[in-house]
């Protein structure tokens, strides 16, 4: 079963670049990628650019409306994701707890809806 692990944190709440903590976080993500790949659960995972690069699109009555910024103003913003293939929720939650950002942000774990198109 596939789970999407959404990585949320307040903007600029993590370690600052050029600090030892930043190095540790970077290494933490490297280790996480290595571990999930070695375990064969890793499908995809990427960090996102900051919300100042976000654009929101809505279509109403056939008209496209484009706006600068994320769709909702919230304290914590989506900063990255992993898509993992896990046996069950417990396995996905155990991986979520290993994502470095969990220490200052939060990880939302969502099961992927399985659609049967056959």
């Amino acid at each position, binding site marked *: *079963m596939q789970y999407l692990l959404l990585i949320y944190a307040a903007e600029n709440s993590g370690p600052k670049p050029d600090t030892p903590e930043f190095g540790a976080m970077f290494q933490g993500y490297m280790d996480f990628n290595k571990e999930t790949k070695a375990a064969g659960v890793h499908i995809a995972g990427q960090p996102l650019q900051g919300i100042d690069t976000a654009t929101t699109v809505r279509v109403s009555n056939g008209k496209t409306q484009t706006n600068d910024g994320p769709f909702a103003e919230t304290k914590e913003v989506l900063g990255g994701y992993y898509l993992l293939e896990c*046996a*069950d*929720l*417990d396995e996905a*939650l*155990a991986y979520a707890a290993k994502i470095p950002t969990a220490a200052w942000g939060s990880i939302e*774990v969502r*099961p992927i809806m399985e659609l049967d198109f056959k």
Partner: protein
Amino acid sequence: MNADLTHAHIEDVVRNSWGRVLSILMSHLRDLELAEDVLQDALIAALKSWPQSDIPHIPEAWLLTTAKRKAIDRLRHTQMHHNKSAEIKMMAKINHQDHEISENAPFAQFKNEQLSLIFTCCHPALSQAARIALTLKAVGGLGNGEIARGLMLKETTVAQRIVRAKRKIKAANIPYRVPERQQWGERLQSVLWVIYFIFNEGYTATSGPQLSRKDLCLEAIELGTTLNQLIPDEAEVAGLCALMLLHDARREARCKHANELVQLEDQDRTLWNQKTIKQATKLLISALSKGAIGPYQLQAAISAVHANASHFANTDWAEITGLYERLYQSTPTPVVRLNAIVALSYAKDAALALSALNELEATGALSEYQYFYVVKADLLERTSQISGAKLSLTRAIQLATNKVERTFLEKKMLKLSNK
């Protein structure tokens, strides 16, 4: 033929077996909805057939066999419509004979199944309210109506919570198994929390006219006892059982004239159930000897000191103060601090306790907490500050949601006004 066998009696027997049978069914079916439905079918079958044949020697075995047969019927039915191989596999699994309940030691081999059910119902991925309702339903075998009455909720609310929880278990694939040992910290905490919540809900109803709802207390003790039998080496489980038993032993003395609250210091200690106190104390001593002391054992120890004092005046307050200090180290909550201050007021004196209470009040953490004002009123009264005591008591009465407790506080107020 046993015509005297009433429906209520049969329902009682089935309810007592419910959690055990459901846990075994779940290990085959892996679908809580289906497992509950077929067990419900088996209950209906029992209501029909047991008055003819009497209660089977091992009711669980009868229920399991019948429920399995109902499951096969249901699966065959869906299979005709969908022709899905998953259902065929499931049927093969149900027919497999591994899971027969043996005549001697009927449940010894199903420990894992029972634990799995408890851990799944108390999974921290479910909301706390859902965990409570689901545990009462699936493990305790209570109906939605009983749960609603016990928790003072609408039946539709309970039903909704249970449906939502089951949907999440299925959609998010919350596993039906005992978690890995390294995850036990959080997982077992959640199980203990659910059981103690159910107990407390029964012990002091948060709202409504009756002070104690005995059934919920007994249900929680039953759940705790089962868990303690399943994992006897976990000291905190035994600690929780001891704690609940110690509270329960004093239940009769807590109330007089149907619904009047009696404080610990005024209780008729001859009404305390000495047999239960002995049993709980023994349980606690063996738990403490395991060297893994946690908050439940400490709370039980505090309760045991009270329970083993022949008079209020004989209470070993120094011991209790020390235990609260240890409890505060592991659980540094303002409520624990408040209780520690009460103990201090008896171990040392009320004036000293009052200054500690003022420090606690300054944090603002308990500004909406009824018992804080009860304690403050008491300490002010004991240091002869009557007008301040009345003010605090007024606030406590405003915050009281339980009718019995409010009446108690109002009487106290009356006494204070006559001083």
